[in-house]
């Protein structure tokens, strides 16, 4: 008889409910659980407070004056906020679509052609925005776009769209590339065996299989563009505030819960797609590394 079989009744006894003795947990470390729980509380407490006070009826962001939606109404009717919100959404949509399209092409180019000269250089350039501090990119674009403005006289949102598309590319690229690398290539080979042209194989086999990666990339790019403060602050010209830069400007004044209301709305806007994404990807059986 094996040892494992012998010890099983003993283990069952230890696990029997009602016994006060806690079994020795090998994975427990002193104080770790307490710190972890505190961390989760500290992480969510400020956000929770921010959301709660967005429903405050009084003028103050610290004294509670009863429940009200007046600040949401105020934000909704605030012309500057409306304009900034529309601008944010337009820029984020353009940046998400453009960067995802470019990133998809680049991901196919860098994963489906085997190894070639300069592949690491391409990879490095694509990931550059993740590495360079935003403040440095910000001043660099301030200099260059300022010059272009002076030469061409063009003042529109194009500069912001270009800058956002550029720094969104790596965020769109990474999930798409990850998906391409883990995808079963035999299906593409099978399509080719069945006389599909490269385009047909891509359109009918690769692209549908790649769709979750593309969706994830686009969602990330959208959220990243929507959140950007620093680069936007440097690239925008007068009257081109996005929601985050508008909020940054507000911090110099006396704050009302209107800022809380706007923050809560932005939170909802980013959290809903994230949560949906989490729930959708969770349903699949966990892939093991």
């Amino acid at each position, binding site marked *: 008889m094996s040892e494992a079989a012998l010890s099983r009744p003993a283990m069952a006894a230890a696990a029997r409910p009602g016994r006060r003795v806690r079994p020795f947990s*090998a*994975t*427990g*470390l*002193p*104080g*770790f659980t*307490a*710190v*972890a729980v505190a961390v989760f509380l500290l*992480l*969510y*407490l*400020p*956000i929770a*407070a*921010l959301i709660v*006070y967005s429903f405050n009826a009084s003028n103050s962001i*610290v004294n509670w004056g009863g429940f009200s939606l007046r600040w949401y109404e105020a934000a909704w009717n605030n012309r500057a906020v409306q304009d900034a919100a529309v601008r944010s959404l337009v820029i984020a949509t353009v940046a998400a679509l*453009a960067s995802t399209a*470019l990133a998809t092409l*680049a991901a196919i*180019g860098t994963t489906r*052609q*085997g*190894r*070639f000269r300069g592949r690491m250089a*391409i990879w490095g*350039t*694509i990931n*550059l925005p993740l590495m*360079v*501090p*935003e*403040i*440095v*990119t910000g*001043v*660099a*674009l301030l*200099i*260059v776009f300022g010059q272009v403005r002076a030469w061409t006289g063009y003042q529109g949102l194009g500069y912001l769209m*270009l800058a956002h*598309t*550029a720094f969104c*590319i790596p965020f769109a*690229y990474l999930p798409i590339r990850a998906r391409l690398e883990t995808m079963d290539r035999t299906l593409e080979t099978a399509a080719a065996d069945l006389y599909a042209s490269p385009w047909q194989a891509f359109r009918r086999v690769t692209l549908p299989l790649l769709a979750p990666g593309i969706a994830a990339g686009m969602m990330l790019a959208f*959220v990243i563009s*929507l*959140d950007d*403060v*620093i680069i936007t602050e*440097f690239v925008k010209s007068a009257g081109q505030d996005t929601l*985050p830069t508008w*909020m*940054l400007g507000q911090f110099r004044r006396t704050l009302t819960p209107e800022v809380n209301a706007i*923050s809560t709305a*932005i939170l909802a806007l*980013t959290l809903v797609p994230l949560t949906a994404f*989490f729930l959708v990807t969770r349903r699949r059986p966990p892939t093991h590394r």
Partner: protein
Amino acid sequence: MSAAGLAEQARAARRARTGWLLSAPALLVLLVGAAGPLLIVFAYSVLTRGEYGGVQLPLSGEGWFRVLFQRDIFDDTISLNTAHLAILWRSVWLSLATTAITFVLGLPTAWFIATRPERTRALWLFLITIPFWTNLLIRTFAVMEVIRNEGILNSLLLRLGLIERPIQILFTDWATLIGMAYVYLPLMVLPLYAAIDRFDMRLLEAGYDLYASRWRVLRRVVLPLIRPGIVAGCILVFIPSLGAYVTPRVLGGGTNMMIGNFIELQFGQGRNWPLGAALAVTLLVVVMGALLLYLRVTQPARARDE
């Protein structure tokens, strides 16, 4: 060379061309909207400061000189610029302190997540990533509301009788530190979690079987084995801390600048673009150095491979 070899070479060349062609549009946008302008910053750092901002010829080392030094207006004596040094020093110590705090808090958190049952682990991990994906400005604002004089923290301490009047935290270095630790914590937890997830928990039992105490197991078994995760987490927190702009601006107030705010000042009111550019290049070089270290630590096999 054999015909087969030539054909293979031609195919490789075609594949390389396709690879470059498919990547070209993305590279073009990155060149115009991210990478190319960085080169202009280098150029600006060695030009002469323009009277109303901007730069002009001739080439000059003045921008770089002024990063650390100053020249007396009357007798041209050169001395270290203590105001600049103070800002650089603040950037470094605040970033190091942020790294230390996030490590002390992040390690238990990552450990906690990694030791949850498979079923709930994804949820805990998700709870850590949510703040990571929410707007940095909003999270900074949330911290501001907690630590301000009339904020939750001070009201709580007052009510408990621990203090007699509110402690001024907002607009001090401590506010920046708290804010950065709060904002960058997920960047520490995620790589630590990845390392702990790969850690073989049976080694703990082996340690206990050999009569090691919990602390000893932590110090002698766990920490050495998750070292790559620790280094990765520390670098990932240190880099954005050093380049932080929003957090020190909102929480530190106007005077407690870090290097990011100092750079902005040179391009705004300071009207010293060469100095701003030199500071930006300095920051870029330090960050790139830290990143190279990060790449060497996290993917040594891959680096050798390619």
